[in-house]
């Protein structure tokens, strides 16, 4: 029987309690909207301020976060975010600007954005960058819109197929679907690369392009990346790079140099913007020369060159064949761009390269320590992450059981059941910030759990046993979609 460790805010409510006592109104009353627009059954909780504070303080102490322990979800979900980023994004000059201010009064912000565009171009090897997209999937959509605009301007209208590997992120086909294109799935070969034969067979003059994550979601750098790019380009397609795994490549490989035409950056992954709870992200997009004229507008540009004495005048410019605006205003400025700018500036070119090298080293160290205990289906030198199977011969223990048991050892579970091409997948991404002691204790826990799977499988089926709440009923949660603790009057659950 689970104990209730904290009631909901609604259960703590008591009629008449209040956080703030409002003074009597000293302005004339106006009539309320028609009563059809009003509702009476809105049971807002009534509590004193201190009770609200204590309630949420207590709930926040139940969190497990990257600030409280090892978090093998990696940069993909959220790597460690250096605290200096929090200082810079709160500098009053950034914090108190408004997107509608005249450009002459926000030159500092524009200078930062301009430099950010330049830095991302240098990091990726692209000719142009937009900072507008609000997150990764929005960046993908922006990129695919530019690919579509490119083919359309050339009158090449029969291209309607996008090639996507079976290891891809689910957002790739979703972005393609938004444009009404069809998706052709390309299988992976036994080494975790794109299957070249299948790719060659799919390449024809109806191909819009290919969306490829490299390294892919198995953590494998495609060993035939040049052939893949060539096959797609030879049939007139464009190469889209999903930048979700850029954390493995900084200062080592530039997607633009590999022949990619477009790629989104996940500032909230690679460049350390916190994004717990689904946002806010930031998904700038870089493009090669042939797509540069299609970038969203406006971009930040230099309107008047400066010299030794005077700073340049920054302003907004519109590319010739721009697909238009992708977001109101200029992207996630303070939350995303200022933090990432700080992160890049603090590391510099050599530091960025160190990030990727340590991320790759740490993943390979963990893979080497776990190789003899867990089956690794695509077993070769990995990049920043690797995927192993959470199952054992002759045992009914599954990946979910192993993940839940990790919580008893005070570790956050890794990504479960993705990518889909690995049975009982456990995807592990330690990132660059973890020291050897942390990696060792995580590996020790996983090795111990594998032993428990043999000797006491029921312990794993029941895990976690030391947490505030035991095993959640995921099936019930998915089948009975009731999220609120009260139901509006007359609401029939059975419908």
């Amino acid at each position, binding site marked *: 029987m689970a104990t209730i460790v904290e009631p909901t805010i609604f259960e703590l409510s008591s009629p008449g309690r209040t956080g703030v006592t409002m003074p009597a109104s000293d302005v004339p009353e106006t009539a309320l909207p028609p009563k059809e627009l009003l509702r009476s059954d809105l049971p807002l909780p009534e509590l004193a301020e201190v009770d609200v504070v204590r309630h949420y303080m207590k709930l926040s102490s139940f969190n497990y976060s990257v600030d409280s322990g090892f978090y093998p979800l990696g940069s993909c979900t959220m790597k460690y975010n250096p605290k200096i980023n929090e200082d810079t994004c709160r500098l009053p000059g950034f914090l108190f600007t408004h997107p509608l201010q005249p450009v002459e009064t926000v030159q500092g912000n524009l200078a930062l954005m301009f430099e950010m565009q330049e830095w991302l171009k240098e990091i990726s090897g692209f000719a142009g960058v937009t900072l507008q997209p609000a997150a990764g999937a929005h960046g993908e959509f922006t990129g695919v819109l530019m690919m579509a605009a490119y083919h359309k301007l050339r009158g090449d209208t029969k291209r309607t197929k996008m090639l996507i590997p079976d290891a891809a992120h689910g957002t790739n086909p979703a972005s393609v679907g938004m444009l009404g294109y069809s998706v052709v799935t390309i299988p992976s070969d036994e080494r975790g690369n794109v299957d070249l034969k299948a790719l060659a067979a799919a390449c024809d003059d109806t191909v819009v392009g290919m969306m490829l994550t490299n390294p892919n979601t198995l953590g494998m750098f495609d060993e035939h990346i040049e052939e893949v790019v060539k096959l797609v380009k030879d049939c007139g397609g464009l190469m889209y790079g999903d930048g979700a795994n850029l954390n493995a490549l900084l200062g080592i490989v530039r997607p633009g140099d590999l022949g990619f035409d477009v790629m989104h950056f996940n500032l909230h992954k690679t460049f350390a913007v916190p994004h717990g709870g689904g946002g806010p992200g930031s998904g700038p997009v870089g493009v090669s020369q042939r797509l540069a004229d299609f970038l969203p507008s406006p971009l930040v540009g230099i309107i008047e060159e400066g010299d030794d004495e005077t700073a340049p005048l920054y302003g907004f410019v519109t590319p010739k064949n721009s697909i238009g605006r992708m977001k109101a205003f200029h992207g996630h400025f303070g939350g995303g761009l200022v933090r990432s700018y700080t992160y890049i500036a603090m590391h510099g070119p050599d530091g960025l390269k160190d990030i990727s090298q340590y991320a790759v080293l740490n993943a390979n160290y963990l893979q080497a320590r776990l190789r003899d205990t867990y089956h690794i289906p695509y077993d070769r030198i990995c990049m920043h992450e690797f995927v192993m199977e959470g199952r054992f011969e002759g045992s009914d223990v*599954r990946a979910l059981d192993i993940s839940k048991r990790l919580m008893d050892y005070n570790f956050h579970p890794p990504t*479960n*059941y*993705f990518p*889909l091409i690995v*049975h009982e997948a456990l995807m592990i991404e330690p990132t660059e910030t973890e020291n050897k002691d942390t990696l060792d204790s995580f590996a020790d826990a996983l090795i111990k759990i594998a032993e428990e799977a043999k000797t006491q499988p029921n312990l794993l089926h029941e895990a976690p046993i030391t947490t505030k709440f035991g095993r959640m009923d*995921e*099936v019930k949660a998915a*089948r009975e979609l009731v999220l609120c603790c009260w139901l509006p009057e007359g609401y029939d659950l059975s419908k």
Partner: protein
Amino acid sequence: MNTPSNLKYTKSDEWFDPATGAVGITDYAQSQLSDIVFVEILVDAGEELTVGKPIASVESVKASSEIYSPVAGKVSAVNADLSNAPETINSDAFGAAWMIKVEGGTEGDLMDAAAYEAYCAGREH
């Protein structure tokens, strides 16, 4: 693994019953997906199908998958009860969990039970 010998199978784990025209997903597929929590049949009775056309969308606690038609032909019936009881796929994949029935179905590239079992065994590694 349960693989009835009177049915035909696809590489994407659908089954087709040549006698009744029924289509569903296999026991192997449901065991891989684990607890199924949502099913939506994407086609209506009377609709013409081509081989490989998406006919349903199935979601489990692990993943969501599209289900593709193993045959070409006309949809003669849709199992309307399935969306209210998606767990039927876990308990009775080859029986009550049929998804649609197809009239005069022309089979795509289908396997018999023995070939499908060998195919599943090959994927276990």
